[in-house]
Structure formats: C-alpha cells, structure tokens
C-alpha cells in the first residue's frame, strides 16, 4: 500500500513540476507567427506541389503575408488554385489582386517519328536525363525531345502524357497547372511555361528548339525551324525573333494575329488553345532521310520495336559489356519483309544518315 502511495505521489509531483516547466518555456520561447499565415494556408489547396516556387503551401502563405506587408501580391500565383485562390488570399489579407495571365506548359518539339526519322536505337536507362548525358538520342536532332518521359513522370496532375503514336509528350491544357515540374525535368529545356491568353488559353508557339543551321535542321526533322525569318518578317507587332537559327514568339508582344502561323513554310509554328494544338499541314512534310524504304517501320520503332530488339534470352558471355548506350544498327524493318541485306546493314543506314551538327556543346546545357 505504502509503495503504491509513494509511486503515485512521486509521479504526480514530477508531472506538476514538468508541466510547470513546459508552461514557462512555451511562454518564454514562444515563436511569434503572424496569425494571417495560418489563415492564408487554409485558403490554399494544400497540395504542397511547389508549383508556386515556394516549399509547399506553408511557404507560399508566408510569402503572401510578407508580400502583403510590402504592399502588393504581384508575382505570386498558386498554379493549382488559380485566380480564385489568389482572390481568396487577397480577401484574407485585405488586398486587391490583379488579373494574372494564365500559363501553360508547352512542348516545343514536334519531332514525331513521322517527322524525325530514327537513326539509332538507344538501349540505355529509360530516362531523358541519362539519355541526354550518355548519348545524343535516337535521331539526328541534338536538341529535340528524347521521348523517355521524364516530364510525364514529373507531373503531379496527370496533365502531360506520352503520345504512343508520335513519341512526343502532349499537355492537357485543362489539367495543366503550370507548376513547372515538367520544364524542370526536361534536360533539354524543351518545355516552356508560357503565358497564354484568356480562358481559351490561346497562343502561337514555335514548336522547335533546334539551333542548327537551316540545312542541317531540315535534314534532321521535317518539322524543324530553319531560321528562315519569314515569321519574323510577317509579324506586325515585333513579337517574333529568330535567334541562333531558331524563332521565338514573345508571348507578351504577340497579338494572336496568326501571320507567323501562315507564313511558316515548315509548319513549325502551332496554334494552341484549350481544345488542343492546331498545326498547318505541309505537303512536302517528310524530309529525304525520313522516307527510306523503311519509313513507316522507323516511325513505329520507338513504341513497337521488332522482335529482334526484345531483350530476352541473352546468353551473356563474359565479354559483354556495360558502357555502351546506343545500338547502332537502325531498327530492323518489320513491314518490309525481304529487305536487301545491303540496305539493312548499318553501313547503308549510316551513309545517308544526316549529321547533326550544332554550335553548342549540348552536354553543358542545363
């Protein structure tokens, strides 16, 4: 009995002493936090996607309060909640919020397998980041989409998907929150977070980032920008400029007149809207290299490699080695049942394979 009593008393006394200590410390070392931060955080979606550029919604809330104290919420945008959320935040903070222009992730490459013939097979890790560092890619374009889907994996909102027909990712404008995760994931900087117009998300975009000279870019891809400046000359509002052999349309200056779209001889400039992408049909689309006997098979190859390339039943002898990434021989032509041996050899593929020269050492990019 006595033992139990002593134990209870000791514990009770300990409890009171420690509780008192905790109380004193919580008062003495209290962290002053602006109560508005909590209120703003409640308005935010709580996805913690980082799309606003801050570490999660808490970071964004703190930034909003700080900006409000400084007098303006300009430059802050919650890509997930959009305008409505920003208005709610402004309401909490007693501020006015200006209309922020909607943004959209735009894939600036239309090097589909029809437009851009494959000249090699990459058999390394299926990651754009690795492909970019270890080999130039499967086509003659050193700038274009590698097609391994790092952007798709990076998207938290299911807004970007790889189109199996073209091998190029496509952005769903209704789902895209312009958080920029895909743009960050792309090792070649192809994806741009671009200001678009109105609820329709209209924009004109040059779907190419190839900085090679015209002739080389033309050889590599049927949809490449060749830097001909027809768009630049057609533009009435000084929005289009060709720099480093590739055109860029400045979204701030663009008036959506569509002159550049009509002027482009390569169908490289596309018109975007929430409904999808509209491209000009160009008749002489396929470049010479794109139309060998095996044109169709080459196109299908990225998604449906012939049986030849299935990585099965490999008897590795000790000599089999790690370092190489690129299978040299072009994909075997499955649609063409009896190709002359000469044509399918590596050599034949190589001789007409265009070189893809560029002025930049791409490995250093990004």
């Amino acid at each position: 009995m006595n033992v139990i009593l002593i134990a209870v008393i000791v514990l009770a006394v300990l409890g009171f002493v420690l509780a008192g200590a905790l109380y004193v410390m919580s008062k003495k070392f209290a962290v002053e936090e602006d109560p508005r931060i909590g209120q703003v955080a409640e308005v935010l979606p709580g996805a913690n996607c980082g799309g606003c550029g801050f570490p999660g919604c808490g970071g964004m809330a703190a930034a909003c309060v700080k900006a409000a104290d400084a007098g303006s919420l300009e430059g802050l945008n919650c890509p997930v909640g959009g305008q409505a959320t920003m208005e709610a935040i402004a309401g909490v903070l007693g501020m006015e919020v200006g209309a922020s222009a909607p943004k959209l992730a735009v894939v600036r490459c239309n090097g589909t397998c029809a437009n851009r013939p494959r000249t090699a097979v990459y058999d390394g890790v299926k990651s754009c980041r690795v492909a970019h560092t270890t080999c130039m890619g499967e086509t003659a374009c050193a700038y274009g989409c590698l097609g391994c889907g790092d952007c798709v994996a990076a998207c938290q909102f299911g807004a970007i998907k790889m189109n199996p027909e073209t091998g190029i990712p496509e952005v769903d404008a209704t789902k895209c929150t312009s958080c920029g995760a895909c743009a960050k994931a792309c090792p070649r900087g192809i994806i741009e977070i671009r200001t678009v117009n109105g609820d329709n998300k209209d924009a004109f975009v040059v779907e190419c980032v190839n900085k090679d000279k015209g002739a080389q870019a033309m050889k590599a891809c049927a949809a490449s920008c060749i830097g001909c400046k027809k768009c630049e000359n057609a533009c009435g509002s000084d929005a289009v400029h060709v720099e480093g052999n590739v055109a860029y349309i400045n979204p701030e200056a663009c008036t959506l007149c569509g002159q550049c779209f009509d002027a482009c001889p390569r169908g490289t400039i596309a018109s975007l809207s929430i409904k999808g992408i509209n491209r000009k049909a160009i008749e002489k689309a396929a470049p010479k290299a794109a139309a060998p006997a095996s044109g169709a098979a080459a196109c299908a190859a990225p998604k449906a490699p012939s049986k030849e390339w299935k990585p099965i039943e490999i008897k590795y002898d000790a000599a089999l080695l790690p370092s190489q990434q690129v299978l040299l021989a072009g994909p075997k032509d499955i649609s063409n049942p009896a190709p002359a041996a000469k044509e399918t050899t590596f050599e034949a593929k190589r001789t007409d394979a265009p070189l893809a020269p560029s002025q930049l050492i791409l490995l250093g990019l990004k």
Partner: protein
Amino acid sequence: MKTFRIGGVHPAENKLSAAEPIKVAELPKVAVYPMGQHIGAPAKPVVQKGDKVKVGTMIAEAGGFVSAPIFSGVSGTVLKVDTVVDASGYAKPAVYITVEGDEWEETIDRSETLVTLKDKPELTPEDIVNKIKAAGVVGMGGACFPTHVKLCPPPGAKPEWVIINAVECEPYLTADHRLMLEKADQILVGVDLLMKGGKVNKGFIGIEENKPDAIALLTEKAKASYPNIEIVPLKTKYPQGGEKQLIDAVVARQVPAPPAIPVNVGAIVQNVGTAYAVYEAVMKNKPLFERVVTVTGKSLAHPSNFLTRMGTPMSQLIDACGGLPADTGKVIGGGPMMGKALLNTEVPICKGSSGVLIMNETEARRGEAQPCIRCAKCVSACPMGLEPYLLATASSKQMWDKVEAEDITSCIECGSCQFTCPSHRPLLDNIRMGKQTVMGIIRSRQAAK
C-alpha cells in the same frame, strides 16, 4: 606479382588482333579534325577555307594552357571549317581537309634511324617540355590529357617517378601491345625523354602478364641500355590501366580524392603510346598526327592494327578489315568497357581513338535489368572503393547532395560495377548522369564564390 589492391574484374580478354603486325592505313579522301580532341580548352582553328596544308602543318592552335594544338595528318586543301559529330554524338567544331597527294613538312625527319638522348645530350628538360607542347602531344590512352601539363607539376608537388602505362587492360585492344613489340627502342627513348622532361631519375613500365613477349623484349632492351627504367609485370586485372590503379599497383601509393592529382604522390603517369609520340615529337620533329588503332570484333573478317593518320573516318578502317559485318549490333569507339557506342561510322580517328570495336547483335544486347539482390558484387568490384548500387539509385532519384557526399566524383567510370552485376542493372548509366550533374553543381558553386 603486383596489382592494385581493391576491386577489379576479369573480363574475357579477346585480344583477337594481338598477332597482327601494324599496317599502314590508306589516306582518306577527306580528313576531318575536331577541335576538341583533348581534355581542356578546345583548339582554335588557324586555317581558312582554301588554305593549302601539308602533313604536319598546324591547323589549330592551343586554346589555353590545358589544351594542345592540332596538326594535319594529310596534305591538301582546307575544304571548310564546320562541325562534325564526334564520338560523343554531339556535333563539335571541326576542320575538313580534302586530301591531295602526300607532301610532308620539310622539318620532319622521316628517316628510320634511332636517335637517343646520347646523340642529343644538349636537350634540356625545358626543351623537351616545349617540344612536346608544340607537337600537340596528349595522353594517347583515351583521356587525352595534354602531356606537357603533366610534366609541369604544380608548386609543392615533387615528381619521383615516371610510370608508363603499358597495361592495355581493355579487352580486345592490342594497339599498345603491337607498338611495344615493333617500336620498343623508340618507346624506351621516349620514356627516357619523359624522365628527363619531368626531372626524375626512375621510370617504370607497367605491363600486364598477358603480354609476355612485350615484357621479355622491353626487359631485355632496358637491361642493356636503360638501367633506370624498370619493367614491372602486373597481374592481369581490369581496370589496371586507370591512373590511380596503376600507381597503386606499381609503387603502392594511393592518390587521395580530388583535387589531389598523381604528382602529389610523386608519380607522372603516361601511356606507352604517348612515350612513342614524345620520341617522335622531340627526336624526329614530328607532331602528333598519326597513331596506332586497333580495329576488331568477333564478326569482323580481319581484325587488324593500323598506323592511321588522324582525321581518317572509322568507316575506312572498317572497310580495310573486310567491311562491316552483316550482324553488326554496335560500333564502339574505344574498348568494350569504357568505349562509347557510335552513332555514325564517319567519326574521325582522333588523338585518343585507341580502337574501333564491332560488336555483333548478340554481344551488343544488354541484359534486362532486374531488381537489385543486395549481393554487393559491385561494391567488391569497384576499384575506387565506392558503393555503386547506392550512387546509381541516389542519382536516379536526383539526390545530388547524397551522391556528392558519397564521393561520386571519384568514380572513374570503368564500368566494373555494371559488368559484374548479376541483375544487369544499368549502374554506370545512372552514375555517369549523377557524376556529370554533381560536377556541374560543383562548378557553378565555385563560380558563385
């Protein structure tokens, strides 16, 4: 028998062309010279379209201290200064020369007579280094580090030995082996020159035991006339040709992690091909414009060793070996372990092109990656004592701080981990990507300071 202490693997040697004497390759029709053939700043072209050049004419000057000039290996007219896809797959600036005849610069001594240091005792170490620098000699093993830079140690470092890398641990390649058998005297003079240029009194030539004829020949010749040069037979193990591994194997010293370099532990390491190039540069006044290249592969009709002018497209050498086999899966510039699969056989032979390997389709195919079974074979195989499974996974998850802390920058990219992995995991792919990213981060951090 000596070897390096940790890690290493034993790939099948496949030295198919070891018995093939070195043949002189035909001149190309158009020779192409990329400007970035070495580590460091790319060279700057000094010729223009239409200029006439001879064999041995300088076509590009060094772009900095860590850089090297480039010399024409052919005579003819400059066709254009443009770009070419090099072994990396990306296009780099290059000079194209249309070949006309074979006219050499008069300054080059084309005689076969052997000139030793005894014949030219007036050469000072500075003369030697300057001649090496002017001749554009770089490491011929593949990394292409400018040779004169290695002979000018940073303040505080005192070289004690010159170690010649005659290991040729890459499977298939036999260029160095043949060179040792056919140019042993010249190589020994080259080593002597490197020792004098680096102001050291002791030289080692490390040769793996799978080349007993080269060991015997060089030992005999060194005993006769070069008492300061010692031939060190080494146990065959990949990657013994790695600079740090070779130092460990020969003199049992370990190079600390970067920024320490081999000369900090007293060693100047040079490839055996470099020693030969040094001999020719200093004694024969011949700049670096040709080298021995092994063209090999199991399906190739005649695996061979060629003495090739630089700028020759690889396709021409392949044709000289009987043409590209029908079952070609990959064409690799370099050896199977560290070489790079090429996108194009028109890639020109450069200063660092030690071989062209044709893999057939079966060989070229990679195994399907399976989950890691935690066997730690990669850890045992890593000659740098790293943990490849960890580096690969952390790199693929973009944990750059983590991989930097785990010393990813020490990785020599030898591929032993991937070679030994029973699950065929693409370890080196991911590690390369991680290493490159981390190096970029480190560079930008230093730039910000």
